[in-house]
């Protein structure tokens, strides 16, 4: 048993103290007074020059939230959150309106640089062409041509740079901070906001509806294929700031868009709350691909600090033949509570959920998806890969349901869990409800321990223990990594190795 013991000891040593993104940017910020009240909400709304209906919408959500209680069904434990001890709005003090990258606070730009996520437009504007990344071309998949990415960067609560606006504008695509969209396209926002995740949906989504500060808004007009990948990088900087983004993406009839979201947060002892809402609407024949790489600060090796991530993400396949696909790589946060879901309302619509969730140290992950089959001949596919190390707990929680009228509904679910060491836990909680007898739902689940013999085989060939674990885990999650856009896949691959890195050797 010593062989196993050695790995356990090593994994014990693996901790999350060396969080790569733990640095703080010194910039002046403008905060709302601490605590939550109708006044806080009025402050936020006024700051953003919102239309009156928006303030009413927020206040209604707030009043509703006061009557709700925090959910406890998830397999996560944390001390009670004091909602009055948080700041709900924090904006870098604007010097002036930013029109291009040079006008952005260099401190902020530096932050992005440290993240290893430069605002890629810089290179593109200067005509710098990197050779395409050396991705795994060796297993026969052709490396995708280098794609353009438009970035909407959210620094704490305000979007500081929206790039590629012009080119997108030509295509008729609207991609801007939601606060701006509320002023420039109020009708569009009003028509769709809250139609997928209503203000009454759940405790955290309702809170978000009341206090959301910013986020992205995307509208792709009928028949338009968005000419580039759209991307937002979130970063939580301010101390004690809850971050409440609100993202709304609409693909009109026959439109297509691929959206990437990446997140990091600096290292902090106190826990930071994050409660975002993402709503996707796909009309007839439209397709939305939404990818997330989340590497927020997971807390230190004693389990102190880290982000509490309570997120509501939902896509509505509202039109016939529409398609929504969620891909997520979750490696960060002390607590993850997240279930990107699809409502398959349109006939022949389809939903997909591809997930990699890695937990280490004292991280707690409770994540999964809901596929709600309402229309006829709808189909869904769920591929979930959970990796638990250290003393972490990793739960897949999923619901697949077919409505009475959802004839011909099909689902395939595969949940695989990999355990590293014997102090962590992996749990699979699938709920299946078929109210229509023609539904065909398949569910497969496996749980296995990382094999000592396989690790030794790799190490005998010269890999370090960490490299061996990274390689084996990357193989384990391959099916999901393949779903990510190429540039993201390379980043995600590195991130997976980093998040399992320990103090070995």
């Amino acid at each position, binding site marked *: *048993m*010593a*062989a196993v013991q*050695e*790995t356990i000891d090593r994994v014990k040593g693996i901790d999350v103290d060396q969080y790569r993104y733990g640095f703080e940017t010194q910039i002046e910020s403008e905060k709302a007074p601490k605590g939550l009240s109708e006044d806080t909400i009025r402050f936020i709304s006024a700051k953003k020059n919102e239309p009156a209906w928006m303030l009413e919408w927020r206040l209604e959500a707030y009043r509703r939230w006061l009557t709700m209680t925090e959910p406890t069904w998830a397999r996560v434990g944390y001390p009670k959150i004091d909602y009055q001890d948080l700041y709900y709005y924090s904006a870098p003090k604007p010097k002036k309106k930013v029109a291009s990258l040079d006008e952005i606070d260099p401190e902020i730009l530096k932050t992005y640089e440290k993240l290893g996520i430069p605002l890629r437009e810089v290179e593109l504007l200067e005509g710098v062409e990197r050779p395409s990344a*050396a991705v*795994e*071309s*060796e*297993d*026969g998949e052709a490396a995708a041509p280098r794609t353009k990415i438009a970035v909407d960067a959210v620094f704490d609560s305000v979007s500081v740079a929206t790039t590629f606006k012009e080119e997108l504008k030509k295509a008729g695509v609207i991609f801007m901070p939601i606060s701006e969209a509320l002023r420039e396209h109020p009708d569009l926002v009003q028509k769709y906001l809250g139609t997928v995740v209503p203000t009454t949906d759940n405790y955290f989504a309702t809170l978000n509806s009341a206090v959301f500060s910013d986020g992205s808004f995307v509208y792709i007009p009928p028949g338009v294929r968005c000419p580039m990948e759209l991307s937002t990088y979130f970063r939580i900087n301010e101390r004690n700031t809850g971050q409440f983004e609100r993202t709304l993406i609409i693909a009109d009839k026959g439109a297509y868009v691929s959206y990437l979201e990446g997140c990091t947060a600096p290292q902090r002892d106190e826990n930071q709350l994050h409660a975002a809402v993402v709503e996707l609407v796909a009309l007839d024949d439209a397709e939305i691909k939404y990818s997330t790489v989340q590497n927020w600060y997971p807390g230190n090796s004693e389990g102190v600090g880290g982000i509490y991530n309570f997120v509501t993400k939902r896509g509505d396949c509202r039109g016939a033949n529409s398609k929504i696909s969620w891909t997520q790589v979750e490696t960060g946060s002390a607590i993850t509570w997240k279930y990107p879901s699809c409502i398959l309302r349109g006939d022949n619509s389809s939903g997909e959920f591809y997930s990699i969730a890695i937990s280490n140290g004292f991280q707690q992950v409770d994540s999964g998806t809901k596929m709600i089959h309402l229309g006829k001949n709808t189909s869904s596919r769920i591929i979930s890969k959970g990796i638990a190390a250290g003393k972490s707990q990793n739960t897949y929680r999923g619901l697949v349901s077919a409505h009475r009228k959802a004839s011909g509904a099909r689902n395939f679910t595969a949940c695989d869990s990999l355990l590293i060491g014997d102090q962590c836990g992996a749990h699979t909680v699938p709920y299946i409800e078929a109210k229509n007898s023609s539904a065909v739902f398949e569910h497969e689940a496996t749980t296995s321990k990382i*094999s*000592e*013999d*396989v690790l*030794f*085989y*790799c*190490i*005998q*060939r*010269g*890999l*370090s*223990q960490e*490299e061996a674990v990274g*390689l*084996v885990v*990357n*193989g*384990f*999650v*391959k*099916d999901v990594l393949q779903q990510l856009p190429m540039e993201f896949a390379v980043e995600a691959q590195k991130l997976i190795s980093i998040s399992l890195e320990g103090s070995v*050797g």
Partner: protein
Amino acid sequence: MTALLEIKGLHAEISGGRKIIQGLDLTVNKGEIHAIMGPNGAGKSTLSYVLAGKPGYEITAGEVYLNGEDLLAMSADERAAKGVFLAFQYPLEIPGVATLTFLRAAFNAQRKARGEEELSSPDLIKRVREIAKTLNIDSEMLKRPLNVGFSGGEKKRNETLQMALLQPSLCVLDETDSGLDIDALKVVANGVNALRSAERGMIVITHYQRLLDYIVPDIVHVFAAGRIVRTGGADLARELEATGYAQYQSEAA
């Protein structure tokens, strides 16, 4: 002659379990090929694991030197970077990791450990393809996940490929002939012979004379009950084929 590998009075047991290696002495000089033959369960694979540094074994006595350096003090990956290569009796499968990806990771990890420059992917791919060709390994196979669904013979050929790529100084081949058909046996033996050099030493563990017809050893050892009970030239293997191990097993017991 300079000693590549020196094993002196080695005793090893499974942690918290049985004693397997019981007083082993063996010196492999540079340029030599040693064959080790012996009955099932004698501890041959265990010896190969102990040399390679697999966790789970306790060294209770003895010393092992590689080029004069204390091998037992090194971690398993250090040993690999120093040139210890073990062709596994049962090669392992790594789902989702393309064979080429694995080869690149191993090759560059060893280079990095030795402070050498990594090889670019195109150069590495070229090198691998050339070796693969000599071993009749289809380049399609290099894209498949390592050893997953490979036939027994394909796995063994793949071990030979890895060995040829990594150019180790000490090759330990544990029953590399098992599972090979006659033609594949020749191909693999040719691959191994191509690695014969004045700088390299090999330990070839096998049950059959057949392999030794192609890879002709300098020295043959009979290994029984955890130690070497007889040493001879290439003809000792032929003798064993006729007599079997019965005499040695009673001797050792």
